[in-house]
């Protein structure tokens, strides 16, 4: 099993956001986590990736059968957990090339590998840029600075392609994307999908799932999964909305 979350409770300050969350993800699977705003979807992503200020008060997160509750974010990343940010962060003055090489080499160092050769690195950059139709030279652009909304999201998928994680969490990657950009992002994800990795796609809307077909769909509400099913569930949600969930599971 790649990811196994057991009875997870997560608080931000005194406020409990995740309230007994369970999820198992195997290699080769695509899971979609859907639900209305404010049910804890992004908090879940933050907890899995080890973000500061998201305190696990109860429960366990296992990744590749290891308990990772106390791992630093960079260790989790190097072990193969990748987060495509809902709002990618700008880092002025740091070129994408430098950022990517630093990240890649940090992960290689973690696995006791020597730094990647310059030629090999640039070749890899060119190859992965094509995957998400990034035309611009990234060498002279700072991380996410001056990127349009669509470019930022493509850039997240590009980084995923460069780092080749075994678990990718896509947090609202579809938000703010026009249909063309959405297709590009989906195409990138589909090409990266393999028997050795898994995707957890967090989304409010069903439309991304037209292009990235999930094996499982989970409906999250008030900090836990209230309903799971196959890809049909997403379609059902699209037509019926989230109101019935609120009525059925609301406090």
């Amino acid at each position, binding site marked *: 099993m790649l990811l196994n979350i057991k009875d997870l409770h997560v608080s931000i300050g005194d406020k409990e956001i995740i309230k007994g969350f369970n999820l198992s993800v195997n290699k080769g699977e695509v899971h979609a986590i859907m639900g209305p705003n404010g049910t804890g979807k992004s908090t879940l992503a933050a907890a899995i*990736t*080890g*973000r*500061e*200020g*998201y*305190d*696990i008060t109860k429960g366990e997160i296992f990744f590749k059968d290891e308990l990772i*509750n*106390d*791992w*630093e*974010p*960079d260790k989790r*990343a*190097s072990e193969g957990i*990748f*987060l495509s*940010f809902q709002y*990618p*962060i*700008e*880092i*002025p*003055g*740091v070129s994408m090339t*430098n*950022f990517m090489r*630093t*990240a*890649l080499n*940090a*992960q290689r160092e*973690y696995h006791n590998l020597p730094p990647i050769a310059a030629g090999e690195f640039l070749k890899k950059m060119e190859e992965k840029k094509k995957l998400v139709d990034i035309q611009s030279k990234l060498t002279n652009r*700072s*991380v996410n600075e001056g990127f349009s909304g669509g470019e930022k999201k493509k850039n997240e998928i590009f*980084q995923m392609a460069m*780092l080749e994680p075994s678990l990718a969490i896509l947090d609202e990657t579809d938000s703010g994307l026009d249909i063309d950009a959405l297709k590009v992002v989906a195409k990138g994800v589909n090409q990266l999908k393999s028997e050795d990795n898994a995707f957890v796609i967090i989304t409010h809307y069903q439309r991304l799932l037209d292009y990235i077909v999930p094996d499982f769909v989970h409906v999250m509400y008030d900090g836990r999964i209230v309903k799971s099913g196959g890809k049909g569930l997403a379609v059902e949600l699209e037509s019926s909305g989230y109101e019935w969930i609120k009525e059925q599971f609301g406090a």
Partner: protein
Amino acid sequence: MTDEKNEKQVLHEVTSGEYKYGFFTNIEADQAPKGLSEDIIRFISAKKNEPEWLLEFRLKAYRHWLTIEEPDWALLHHPPIDYQDIIYYSAPKKKKELSSLDEVDPELLDTFNKLGISLEEQKHLAGVAVDAVVDSVSVKTTFQDTLKKHDIIFCSFSEAVQDHPDLVKKYLGSVVPYTDNYFAALNSAVFTDGSFCFIPKGVRCPIELSTYFRINAANTGQFERTLIVAEEGGYVSYLEGCTAPMRDENQLHAAIVELIALDNAEIKYSTVQNWYPGDKNGKGGIYNFVTKRGLCKGNSSKISWTQVETGSAITWKYPSCILLGDNSVGEFYSVAVTNNFQQADTGTKMQHLGKNTRSTIISKGISAGQSNNSYRGMVRVGKRAENARNFSQCDSLLLGDKCGAHTFPYIKTNNPTAIVEHEATTSKISDDQLFYCQQRGIDMEKSIGLIVNGYAKDVLNKLPMEFAVEAQKLLAITLEGSVG
């Protein structure tokens, strides 16, 4: 995980890094007794076999110094300096004249090797002529032959006094008179050595000129004097780099750098300053009171200061430009990092006197630990300076919540056609940025280094290549607990 606590801990660790270059060379010093008097000045002057006029210059400076007070307007705090408790002259004993690197004291070469600036390597690989100053006396000058071919003079100040007295007499004190300020007066009275560079008319210096300063013997104040003159159409890029061995007692350093650019001449002066900043409790460290000023004397001349300041317990330094010639250009690019209990009050003065003069100021302050970092700058436009332009950008970056950043911009324009722009920002490294880097596999320390280097990039880009790499490393070393 207890995330917030963790961040504080890491931030504490990375901001309490110990100085990496803590070692000192055991070279027998030939030194003056402690204290300052006319006799000491005569001793220094005699030791250096100086002409009468130079002794007179020193004595006048000393007598003036006696009449003035130490300035107290900077945002700096330190115990009073006992000027009678300082040794004003100290020289490594020279066994004989040196004609090659093989004859240089092996221990001294070892010191340079520890710093990663092997003279030999630089000589062969980087094409840099190095005038190495250890404890005030130049030990070795390289690449003289190449320079000679272009009629460029690059030597120690003492040699210049002996070999080119007329040039020294003509320009010494012409940009920074001994009456300029307290520390300039002190330096003028007791300076022991430094560098002299003269670029004749129409000559572009083909190599970067470099001087590495080190402060070595305990309790030795170091008073450098640098004079660079570029005649009409001349060009030179000059690098000054510093590291100092670890000391417990505070050491005073009061240097003067004078630059003179004639018509169409350009001088680029780059500094990486990494003197001992004191330990993480604020004990020890160098007091660095420096007067650096360039005179764009000729029309269309240009002087550019670039500095990366990571060291010293106290930095008091305002590399400035007097834009006298019409169409002359002044530039100041600065990164100043303070950590632990360091204090920096640094900036620049741009004096626009000629017509169509332009100046650019880019200052990036980075404060960590419990340090204080101030930018102090003045832009003054004179009556005659039609169409003067200035652009200033002063940014401050804070790491943690115990440090301070301050900006003191002064603008005085006496000409209505002047355009002076000033931008200032203060920011903190955001948790979002740190997490973003960490999520890609980069640890906290490296993430801080990456973000800080990005922040300082506009200035680092102005440094010559070899220096930029060293400067990036220094920023990382200064802010990280460990490196490599």
